[in-house]
């Protein structure tokens, strides 16, 4: 598969002269195009000159002790891990509170209904007119 010179120019302009920085899938076709194109070779030399200058940029000084500091700081936030424990997470579970409230209400209702079924039924009271007739019968 051959690469258009325009694409190769774009690669050199974006990623520089080093094929190690080019997109992996385009390295082989780009190098094939480079071999046959003096114009592309000239552009690669230009890109190389800029790369050489960029490589002279200051390099950061890394502090090897930083990792230990970060790890001990993380250990200091152990309470964060404690929050992962079940009870705390239940408290934090704000989105679930409505469901829990509904569950509680349903349980309470069930208890009330069940409890009332266990209570002794009141003795049957005859209607007042029957009571009156019985009394009248007694008087007679």
């Amino acid at each position, binding site marked *: 598969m051959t690469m258009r010179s325009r694409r190769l120019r*774009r690669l050199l*302009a*974006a*990623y*520089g002269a080093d094929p*190690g*920085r080019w*997109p*992996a899938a385009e390295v082989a076709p780009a190098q094939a195009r480079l071999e046959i194109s003096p114009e592309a070779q000239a552009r690669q030399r230009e*890109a190389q000159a*800029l790369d050489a*200058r*960029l*490589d*002279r*940029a*200051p*390099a*950061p*000084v*890394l*502090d090897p002790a*930083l*990792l230990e*500091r*970060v*790890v001990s*700081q*993380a*250990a200091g*936030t152990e309470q*964060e*891990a404690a929050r*992962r*424990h*079940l009870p705390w*997470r*239940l408290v*934090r*579970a704000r*989105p*679930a509170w409505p*469901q*829990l409230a509904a*569950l509680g209400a349903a349980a309470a209702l069930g208890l009330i209904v069940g409890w009332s079924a266990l209570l002794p039924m009141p003795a049957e009271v005859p209607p007042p007119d029957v009571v009156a007739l019985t009394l009248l019968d007694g008087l007679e």
Partner: protein
Amino acid sequence: MTALTLPPATTAVPCDALGLAWLGRLLPRALPRDEVAWDRAVSEPAAAVAETLDARSDERLVALVALGQHDAFRVLGARHLPRVQRIAWRMLGDHGQAEEVAQEALLRVWTHASRFDARRGARFSTWLHRIVLNLCHDRLRRRRHWLGLGAAAEVADPAPHPLARLAAAQESERVGAALAALPARQRTAVVLAYYERLSNAEAAAAMGIGVMALEALLVRARRRLRRILATEEEQ
């Protein structure tokens, strides 16, 4: 080599173990993360448990970090901290601030590891680089100027002769100043793709843009750098 130690049983008690599976279903937002991490961490064959942490992928280590595993966090930090420090330093140009950003980024990994979900095909490094870049851009927005690559910097290739060394230091300073003159997004693209040699897909993902947009930023950045450096040479 760090040996794997399983987390204490109290770190994340799966609801099923307590006979509270119904509660787990009832509280879907409260309980899933650590259980997912737990499943990922322990669903390997027994032989794999003996595997060292060093050999584990970033994504497996993050699952262990979500369970509060310090050893996994240390391995992950050792793997990524140097790059995180370099990116922050090249973005901010200040050693102290770069260290603060690197520290903050890793602590966010520690506290928010359970938010990372590798099952969606996400890469840990992309997630971490985004955290670092966001922290850097926040600081850049606040101060609105770049401090320049100053005292903490080392000249890339110090020459032995004092005069040559001075010339190298001046050249280094010029290149640092040219990088500092780039707009933040162009500088980010150069830092990730050129200096850190991330693939174009990784760099684009870390910046939250497409590959073509990344290439456009790189082309503009290199054109600008060439112009700045050429102008300085003329002067």
